[in-house]
């Protein structure tokens, strides 16, 4: 089972928002702290719903939170 290729800026966004604690963000988006850690570390790709909730907490667009690498063309 491969970890996700989706990368994210959650850690940076948390620090930019008053060093928000993982537990507080997890609570705000309705997941456990362990799941938030897994998302931050790229070990879990959250549902769209959770992704939107994260973006809404930071008041940014989805692509400012999550990034996906361009497909390589030959």
């Amino acid at each position, binding site marked *: *089972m491969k970890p996700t290729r989706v990368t994210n800026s959650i850690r940076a966004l948390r620090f930019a928002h008053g060093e928000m604690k993982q*537990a507080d963000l997890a609570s705000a988006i309705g997941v456990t702290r362990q*799941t938030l850690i897994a998302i931050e570390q790229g070990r879990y790709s959250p549902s769209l719903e959770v992704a939107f909730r994260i973006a809404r907490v930071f008041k940014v667009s989805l692509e400012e939170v999550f990034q996906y690498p361009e497909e390589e063309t030959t």
Partner: protein
Amino acid sequence: MAYEEKQAWALGVIAVVGYAVYVVLVLSRMDGQPLADVPYIGAMLWTIGIGIVAGIVAGISFGIASRNDGLQADERDHEIGRFGDHIGQSFVVIGGVSAMVLAMFEAAHFWIANVLYLCFVLSAVLGSVAKIVAYRRGMQ
């Protein structure tokens, strides 16, 4: 460690320990007679029963220990749970088919009961291992 990951560890360990105790109990009763003639029903029922109770007690203990952690299971836990159950289920099917084949060939009840028990244990262990790996290494 997530509540559900602790549960996966507990169920995997309980399944292995319970089966190991069962095997030791049955082998210690052999006393020179063929394995199929060894009384096994009591040992099997007790180890299954104690395993179920131990699983419930472990779940309650983990729940009490993490009662202040807020949410205990979310979408990731549910996805990993389904993934682990799906993996473990293969052994339930293998056990059922094996028992059916043994019954067709009129094998002793001992072998039919034991192949079913072994496959239930392997199902629980494989399912738990799959969940733990998914928790540790991640899932897409």
